[in-house]
Structures are given as C-alpha cells and as structure tokens.
C-alpha cells in the first residue's frame, strides 16, 4: 500500500482511495466507581499513612482506568479491517468510541456516513415481548415504524424464534435471545459497520447463517471493522488488520503480516508461561 500524500494535507492517502474514518490520537478513560481506592497501586507511605488509607479507602472510590491511549489510523471505503488483540487490550472500547457510543477522553474521530455496531449485546428489555423489542431496536436505529414492520418477518424468521415472538424475552433461552439481538442488528446495512465478536453466537447452523449475512452486509457497507480474538476469522474476512495492545496501536498492515506476528508473540507468551509454571 503505497501511501502518498495526494491531498497535500500531510496525511498520507493512497491514490484512488477515499477515507471513510479518520482517527487521531484517540483516548478513552474509564471511570470505575466502587472497588477500592488506590486499586492501581499508589500505596500510602508510613504507618500513619497506611492507617489513614485503611479508613478512607471506602470513601470516594473512583478509579480512572486508561483503556485506549492514543490511537491513530485512517480507514478507507471498501476496506474490511480486522481488529485483533488480547482480552482487555481495549479493542472493543476503541471501536465503541469510534462508533460514538462511549465518551472519549481526547483525540478525534471523523467519519463519512452512519456507523452501526453489530453485536449480540445490544440491549433489549427482558420484560417486553420479542415483537416490542424488534420495534424498539429498529426505532432506536432510526428506522421508521413502517420500515420496522417490513423487516419484522425477516427478523423473526432469521432468529428462528417462531411463536416465542409474542412472549416476554425473559422466557427465552439465552441462545434465542442472542439470536434475536443479532437478527435485529443485522437487519439493515449501514455505511460503516462494526462487528464485535458477533459471529460466535448460537449453534453451527446459526453461525453459518450469520456469517453469510455479515458477508452480504459487508458487500453493501462501505467499511467494515471486525473485532475478534480469533485470527482465523480475521484472515478469512479482512484485507487489513490492526493489532491493539494495552490501549496502543501495535501494528497496522496487511492481514497476514499482522496476524503472523500476533500469533508468533502469543505463542511466545504461552511457551514462557509453560516454562515458568
């Protein structure tokens, strides 16, 4: 990917590509309430300090946890980008911030078009019936009542919940609930799509069905991000990969190159752990 400065702005854009997302120095900090104060070190000094610490530890327990610490990249139309990294590396947080769903602590995100997050944890109300949840989920995405009604049958059919659609969601099995959530979020194709580990839902049959649907959406959507800790999925579906490690961008490049070094490092860690323990 020859990155030349065709725009004259100082940001390298390869010829013929159109940027759809620009992220510059993005930072996200979690404010964690509860827990203990000084949870992340900062032990008090001296006997008096420690005694004071023991007493005041339960008041004002707000801990700031930096989850994303300055990530920059440009994504282009027609790209599918796999985002890999270990659990807790900040990859989901990063993409939620890009989608404008969680507050940022610094930096900028620019996007061309609407961004949607597809996941199995899109919240729905367990006290309400499947029908009402479908309506609620669709309206929240900005569809009209008429559009949701048109999608209704497709969603019910795709989720395979049948007559359960009339019952409250708390009566659903966890698999049924996850399938319904996926079906609601997969019913429309946005300009920029973020898929967060949604491909591991349900049984083998549903997984194949959802992978096919994601592929369909991928062809309609301009840019796709796939968050996964499975390099196999990323290799299969993406042409570019970004490796996030402890809130920092560790590597950005062609899928195979990034996945190879990621796997190499992960193998090294496992070997080291085995030797030690």
């Amino acid at each position, binding site marked *: 990917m020859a990155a030349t400065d065709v725009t004259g702005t100082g*940001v390298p854009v390869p010829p013929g590509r159109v940027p759809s997302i620009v992220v510059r120095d993005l930072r996200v900090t979690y404010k964690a309430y509860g827990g203990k104060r000084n949870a992340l070190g900062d032990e008090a000094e001296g006997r008096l300090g420690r005694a004071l610490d023991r007493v005041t530890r339960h008041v004002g327990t707000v801990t700031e946890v930096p989850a994303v610490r300055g990530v920059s990249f440009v994504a282009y139309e027609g790209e599918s980008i796999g985002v890999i990294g270990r659990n807790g590396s900040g990859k989901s947080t990063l993409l939620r911030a890009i989608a404008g769903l969680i507050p940022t602590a610094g*930096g900028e995100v620019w*996007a061309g078009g609407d961004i949607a997050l597809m996941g199995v944890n899109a919240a729905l109300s367990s006290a309400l019936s499947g029908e009402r949840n479908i309506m609620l989920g669709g309206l929240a995405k900005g569809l009209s009542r008429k559009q949701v009604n048109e999608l209704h049958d497709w969603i019910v059919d795709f989720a395979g919940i049948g007559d359960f659609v009339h019952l409250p969601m708390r009566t659903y099995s966890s698999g049924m609930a996850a399938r319904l959530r996926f079906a609601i979020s997969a019913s429309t194709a946005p300009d920029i799509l973020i898929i967060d580990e949604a491909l591991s839902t349900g049984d083998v049959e549903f997984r194949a069905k959802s992978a096919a649907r994601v592929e369909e959406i991928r062809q309609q959507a301009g840019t796709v991000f796939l968050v996964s800790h499975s390099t196999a999925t990323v290799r299969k579906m993406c042409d570019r990969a970004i490796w996030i490690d402890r809130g*920092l961008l560790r590597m950005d490049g062609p899928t195979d190159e990034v996945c190879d070094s990621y796997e190499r490092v992960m193998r090294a860690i496992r070997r080291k752990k085995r030797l030690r323990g």
Partner: protein
Amino acid sequence: MTGRRWPALEVDPPWSASQVAELAHEYGLERVDTPPGLVRYLRQLWERRAFVIELATARAYERNQNNVLGQLWAALNPLLLAGSYFLIFGLLLDTSRGVDNYPAFLSVGIFIFSFIAASATTGAKSITSNLSLVRSVRFPRAALPVSVALAEFLLLLPAIGVLLVLLPIVGEPPRWEWLLLPGAMALLFGFCAGLSMICARLVLDVRDATNLIPVAVRLLRYVSGVFFSIAAYAGHGALSLVMQYQPVALFLQLVRSCLLSEVPQDPLLWLWGAVWAVGFLVVGAVVFWRAEGRYGRD
C-alpha cells in the same frame, strides 16, 4: 502479570489536528465524538420521536405486566388509593384544614405530585439504567429522560380518568373548567420533561446526587401543598408567595383550579405555569445537550 511486559510507550500522533481537519473537510467527513449544534440536536431528537413514544409506552406497559390483572392495575391502583383517601378523610376523620372537599383536594395533590416526583427520580436514572442501550445504539441521549417523563405521564392518565369518575360521586359536579385540564396537563408534561433532563445531567456530573434527589423530593412533598392549602396555612407574606409560585406547588394548584370548584381559575396561575414549563424545557434541553458526548461513561 502474565506474559512479557511490552514496551508500551504512548506515541505522538502522526498527524496534527489541523492536517486531519483539512483532510476531513476535503472528503466531507464529520466529527463523531462531539455532539452536533443545539438546533441540529433537537432536530435529531424530533426525528426519533417514534422511538421516544415506543420506549415510553413499553415502559408504562411493563410496569403493570407482572401479574394476572395486568394493565387493569393502571386504573385499579389509583382507584384504590383515592378510594382509601375518600374513606379515611371524607368519612372517618374530619380534617378539613381550610379545604372544603379534602379527599378530592388530597387525591389531585397526590397524583400530580407522584408524577413530578417520578419524573425526577427515574429521570435521574434514565441513562445509568439504560447503559447497554446507550453503548450499543447511537441516538440523541435526550430521548431517554424525555421518554421517562412520557412514561410517567402515560401512567398518570388512568389516574386522572379515575378522578374524573370519582369527583362527581363526592360532590364535585362536572364543570366547564374541566375542559382546561388538557392545557394544564400539557404544561405539566413540559415541566416534567425538562426536570427529567436536568436530573439526568445532574447525576452525570455528581454521581452521588442519586441519593440526594429522593431527599429533595421528600422535602418538596411537605412544602408544596400536597396535603394542605398553602394559602390557608402560610398566610399572605412574601414567603407564602414563594411557596405558592414555586413550580411544584404551582402545578398542583393549576390542576386543582381546573378540577375543583373551591380553587378559582386565575390567569396568574396559567402565566406562571407557562413560564415554568418553557423555562424548564429550555434549560433542561440546553443543560442536557451540553454534556451529550459524555453520557454512557460507566
């Protein structure tokens, strides 16, 4: 710590903010992480009105769905409550407190006050109790506190219906003034929607306000003339005027002036009702919008 500690040093961004802004301008990209201008924000909220209404009806419906009689309780609850007031204060005890029809006076007070109180307390929790929705779908966050106020309003309607049926039975014949009720309710709703947004913002800045709002509500319950007529108790001094024209007391009185023959219609009540409704809506919308990019943090 498992594994090796990577040299995890933060790096400087490869491009400057102005370079990126120029690029964004060239390709028509827009900022995602900052809220739009107020006018555009309100337009986006208006475009999601179907969502606000659906969320409100769903929430109101949900409240009474967990038992056999289901939605009947929306009317049964206020009926039982008002019924017991009429029984206790109308027949068993004689506590008129400067009021001709105390049970009717009290029932209106309780229903309207409960609506205002619920708008404040559930409005304060509207973001935190919908956190997973906030973190998975993008929409103007003001939809949440507004739909909370609307849900409480929908739950108030059957109670008002019950009142309209009960009042003639206890000696308050239907009057032309009843036709003014929708106007008073509209102003009341505007006030509560604004209040709900203000409380939601307050909790964002000071998380501990969640514990203080119920205290404030309890205090207001006793000074707003829910149980007694402020004019009859507090006289006609400056303090009495403040107590009568503070928004909660004012809206109680405004609704009573529409329903009860003993509270006369007063243009001043309507004027202040409009002032409070518009004032709270505008302040609520602005205050809530200014923090739009910050909702959804833990």
